């Protein structure tokens, strides 16, 4: 059904008038021009399209836009503040926790969600939480290290 959906996107009010069954991924990428959220599988399996909705990580390829009405959506474009990288982003750069970079936005937002709930995760907790995000380049060991450092470097984990 075509209707207007209001939500908060990266801290600012946003309204889109669209078929409300359309998936959030395509509304973000196509209608709102936020291409940092990636298409990888379209089946909620690879995690490349991960965004945060009300502090929870969701696979935006499989969330209809009607489900986000009135909610807070955070994409990779909204993670840093005042031109500064978020500690997780900083840690990914420092640890070279990326290769082609395509899965990176989804990795970082999944990690962000983890640190919101578990500010000081153990390595096993990081692995368990991140296990449904796929990286074909094989940057997993460095991503784990980066998340561990980001967690250790902030008072409450993520902001």
């Amino acid at each position: 059904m075509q209707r207007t959906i209001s939500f908060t996107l990266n801290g600012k009010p946003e309204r889109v008038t669209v078929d409300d069954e359309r998936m959030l991924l395509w509304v973000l990428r196509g209608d709102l021009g936020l291409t940092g959220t990636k298409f990888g599988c379209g089946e909620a399996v690879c995690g490349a399209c991960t965004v945060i909705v009300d502090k929870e990580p969701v696979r935006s390829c499989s969330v209809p836009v009607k489900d986000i009405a009135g909610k807070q959506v955070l994409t990779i474009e909204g993670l840093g503040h005042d031109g500064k990288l978020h500690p997780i982003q900083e840690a990914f750069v420092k640890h070279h926790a990326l290769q082609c970079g395509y899965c990176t936005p989804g990795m970082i937002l999944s990690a962000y969600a983890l640190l919101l709930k578990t500010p000081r995760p153990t390595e096993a907790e990081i692995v368990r939480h991140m296990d449904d995000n796929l990286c074909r380049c094989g940057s997993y060991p460095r991503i784990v290290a980066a998340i561990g450092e980001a967690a250790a470097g902030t008072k409450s984990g993520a902001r």
Partner: protein
Amino acid sequence: MRLDDLNRRDFMAAGTGLFVFARAEWLDAQQPPAARRPSYPTDFNAFLRIGGDGRVTGLVGKVEMGQGEMTALAQCLADELDVPYDSVDMVMGDTELCPWDSGTGGSTCIQLFSLVLRRAGAEARAVLLQMAAEQLQAPVERLKVAAGVVSDPAQDKRITYAEMVQGKRIERHLGNVPLKSPAEFRLIGRSQPWKGAVEMVTGKTKYTGDISVPGMLCARILRPPVHGATLREVDTTAAEKAGAQVVRTDGLIAVLHERRDVADAALGLVKARFDRPAAGPDDRTIFDHLLKNAPPATLLGEKGDPADGEKQAAHIVEETYLNSYVAHAPIETHSAVAAFEDGKFTVWVSTQWPFQVKQQLADALGVSPESIRVITPVVGGGFGGKSVTSPTGAQQAHEAARLARATGKPVQVVWDRGEEFFYNNFRPAAVVKVRAGLSGAGKIVSWVYQVCAAGPRDAISVYDIPNQRTTSAGNYTDSSHPPGMHPFRVGPWRGPAANTNTFARESHLDILAAKAGVDPVEFRLNHLTDARLRRALETASEKFGWKPAKAPTGRGVGIACGTYKNESRMVTMAEVAVDKRTGHVQVKRVVCVMDQGLTVNPEGSQIQLEGGIVMGMGYSLTEEIRFQGGDILNRDFDTYPIPRFSWTPRIETFLIDNPATPSAGCGEPPAITMGAVIANAIFDAVGIRLLQLPMTPERVRAAIQNLQG
């Protein structure tokens, strides 16, 4: 002079004739005919520009796909030119801005272009010094250069590169400018910040699918259900009613809409009926099919007489090793955007071979190559899957360009995950037969090695065996097989042929070592004179803490040696745990020692080693294309599991310091030892010998039952 000649001369000068042969093999396997192949420019201006603001642009026709070329090549250029690393920007894979290139693959980026950019930087620096000497009226010998500034301490005068060049071409040239020696390196050999990392972590990096052109339509294309199917009838009425534009052109039926997901939904409304082909081989019958349909084998190498050798043997060990088709499965699917304006095509493509795409598009569209510009943004993973080894290799670019011409609008084609699996140029399934004779004294006295369908790369054993013969039938490109031999496209997959050949050779070595009752490391050393590999093996033993013993020991440790294109040397050791009940194999620890010659970026190299190890676990343990009647049965990550966080072992990588040997590149090699090192560790753990990849829980369980039964 061509780059090929330059390199040949260098490598010959280094006294390593083997390099030439190996490179030629790579080119023969993957390149278009020589007549169609342009050559690399000799003018250094083709590879670098110095802007009026002092920023330096490096121009290379290869692409960045996660292997860290932008970083390493910028290091090479900045080091020789004597400018800050941060002042260098790399432009890659743009056919209008960059000089022609052969394509990205074979771990050749650093191997070839570290030298090209170093030479360009060194010559430009020498020319700039000469110009500065004239302008400052000082002898060249007195001048100092640092960070793009030439200074004359005697007169306390200085001039910058930017002031002299002012953004123009540098017309002056000099011959025979020496390169820096390793002792003079300022950046080469030292890890540098990853170029593009900040853009990647902030989502600013534009991949091909992120390119948006005004008026662009997203296209979804009607696909056959199986390979070889023919369309009988089609009804697109419902798709049109849903607001999509339907285009039929040159056998393509596409639905287009400015929103990708609306086009997706419309494609679902297209009703089509296809005739399926007669049943061909499936994933079980494929190995016999390959043996029957392979082209004649060619002799790769021969020494002594294996039949004579067998007469001295106390044991003959003969085995057949199999591996299945595997997919590249990059997270970024094949993507292209084509815009057709004023008779000129601009095509953004996620490809490893932009210049071949340009030529192929020109041929296919019947236009001149000059009317096509191919731009390759950062590629979201390639691994060989985005190389162009058949005339329609960059299929998605052909589709986008044809649809752009048909609609008169810019068109985006981004494959979905199913299309990515369906149209993949898989690593070929392959069969390797090895027959070896072992003397009573524990020496390999004969070795007959026959590889079918994988390719010849690294098939010749690195071990010293007095009597040996190695043959290869077919290669890993489509053009190297008779039609119908493979039921779908094949192509290079990270360490092509070498991962098949290394699995077979190193598994067989272990079988022989066990038969001889000798520790597998000692057994290899007993047959090895190659100094670089011996050093890597000894280093790995020390780093891993290898405790010599005859396998199986129950500890679950394994070893595999590798050579890649006869250039790099590596040794991998691994520890695994095998769950005898489920057959699940967990790789717990991997130590990899690599000698790739001169290392440009140590951390970048280590990242490649880690990536190759992780990716190599996939083809070793789970990855296998299932197919029947032309249908690809696994087309998603649920049915085609790839390595995940929870698989990741503790990985330790070590680079052997060998700056006197030219860089060999390390994007592919670490993947090639993974099959054998895991197979050998599984044998050590539970005494079963797996001869087929991947070593799935089912195959492990079956082998355990077989052993017990």
